């Protein structure tokens, strides 16, 4: 009896050793820096000699008076509100179409829809930059079709530049989200659809009354992931539009980077305060996700 207990204890100890390296790394590489960032957000001065700011909330007060920061906050939420719903609806629609057993060339279609995920974020940003350049393909085509009389400076105008970023994001991430929905749909028994068909439900009805409710957990998860990703957008803002014109496409992460490493100012205290706000927004969303996710079980 005693011997068995010691064997079990030995096994449990081995279990702890297995998860020790990963746990330590997460504490040192995520939790500790997060606490440090929180402390830094109350400090000011050059990175080598940071002192407590006076008053203590100085960085936070500054943040809400900083017109550029508020612009970047607005931009980020604009991308969120427009891009995420369009992308997710398209993704569900594509998944639904691709889940039809009668469809020919399903594999080929699936591969093509999924293909944008094979590019790095910097790569596709630059491809879109060249497509939408003032002297570029899209302008050329619009000219030839007679839709415009002179080249549009897509990247140089506020509204069109924002539109290009949103289009690029939809292009890159729709297929990615489609994969989740397709996996979710494959868990739904085909007989459920057969039964609906017998009951006389048409395509839209089955979509709204069967597909959407059954995919609910997946939809919530992709929604949260997309929000999380959008709040942290960086590569596109940096490389597609360089944040311009006049910061009108710049994201929060881009502005934080500029303030800490970009322009040689190295304002770590202020950057940390802004980053902490991003954290709070992400945390609130993750919390909602966990609450909603709990209901699944």
């Amino acid at each position, binding site marked *: 009896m005693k011997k068995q207990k010691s064997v079990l204890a*030995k096994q449990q100890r*081995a*279990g*702890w*050793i*297995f*998860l020790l*390296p*990963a746990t330590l*790394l*997460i504490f040192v*590489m*995520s*939790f500790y*820096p997060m606490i*440090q*960032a929180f402390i*830094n957000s109350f400090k000011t001065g050059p*990175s080598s000699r940071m002192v407590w700011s006076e008053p203590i909330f100085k960085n936070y007060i500054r943040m809400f008076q900083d017109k550029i920061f508020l612009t970047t906050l607005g931009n980020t939420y604009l991308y969120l509100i427009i891009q995420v719903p369009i992308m997710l609806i*398209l993704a569900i*629609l*594509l998944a639904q179409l691709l889940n*039809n057993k*009668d*469809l*020919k060339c399903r594999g080929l*279609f699936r591969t*093509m*829809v999924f*293909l*944008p*995920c*094979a590019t*790095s974020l*910097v*790569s596709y940003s*630059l*491809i879109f*930059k*060249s497509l939408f350049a003032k*002297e*570029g*393909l*899209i*302008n*050329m*085509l619009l000219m030839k079709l007679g839709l415009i009389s002179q080249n549009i400076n897509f990247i140089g105008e506020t509204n069109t530049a924002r539109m290009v970023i949103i289009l690029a994001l939809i*292009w890159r991430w729709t297929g*990615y989200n489609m*994969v989740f929905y397709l*996996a979710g749909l494959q868990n739904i028994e085909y007989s459920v659809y057969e039964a609906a068909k017998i009951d006389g439900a048409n395509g839209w009805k089955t979509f709204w009354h069967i597909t959407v409710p059954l995919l609910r957990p997946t939809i919530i998860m992709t929604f949260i992931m997309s929000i*999380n990703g959008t709040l942290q957008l*960086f*590569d596109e803002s*940096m*490389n597609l539009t360089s944040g311009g014109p006049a910061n009108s496409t710049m994201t929060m*992460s881009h502005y934080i*980077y500029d303030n800490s490493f970009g322009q040689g100012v190295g304002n770590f205290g202020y950057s940390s305060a802004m*980053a902490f706000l991003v*954290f709070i927004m992400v945390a609130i969303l993750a919390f909602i996700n966990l609450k909603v996710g709990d209901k699944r079980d």
Partner: protein
Amino acid sequence: MTSKKNKSAIQRRLIPSYIFLIIWSFISVFPFYWMIVASSNSSYEVSQGKLTFGSHFIENFINLTHDYNLWGAMGNSFKYAIAQTVLCLFICSLAGYGFELYHDKHKDRLFGVLLLAMMVPQVATMIPLFVMIAKMKMLNTVVAFILPAISTPFMIMMFRQNSRNFPVDIMEAARIDGLNEFQIFFRMYMPVMKSTYAAAAVISFMNAWNAYLWPKVVMPKSEAQTMPMLIAVIAGGYSIDYGKLMMGVLFCSIPTMIIFFLLQKQFAEGITGAVK
């Protein structure tokens, strides 16, 4: 006969689906076609929207390798991505194995705590981590690149979830045969979990290859540059040579595209792997 008629009726009803899928597939694929075509044209031809293959492929390539350290950046990207993938898989699978197969109340609680790291944004940790790495005098090294990415809640969760399918009987049998817990991991768990490792490897490699913000912070030296950083530099000038740029973008995309086409199934499994 009737079934044939039925089939053609079904296919006819699917026509709108086909049209939509063909349009979307075209949109998906076109930028890739554009990238390849543009890399074979001169900057002027690219700006004129030339949609056919040109004769400047070799010239663009020579310009690119002459003006920028392409092979250096490719080498760096491969080095960092492989190092990150190997270590990440090892550390995270070890943890996933520990959390699932030795689970008790305390370990489950710890796992819950680790999951909180999922909501820690990169912009928040990058400053303290930069200071830490700089103090360790590790800037511009492979260690700086991979250290924050070796252990991620996503990967641990993926291995933990997939470990549920690992047959516990094997462990008992192995223990009776006299294997210790570590031998079980290396000799039993790793071979059985091959497909999970493959999916995780694809995701980890892609993430490392595509990383941009963090390397931009800790790899300021041009000798330490990665491919995404290199192409961003090419695009950063006032007058951009689009032919040369697209050649760079092509090189940056080739490895991830090869992986995509060869391991698409594992890629899809890897993306959705942690959320079963």
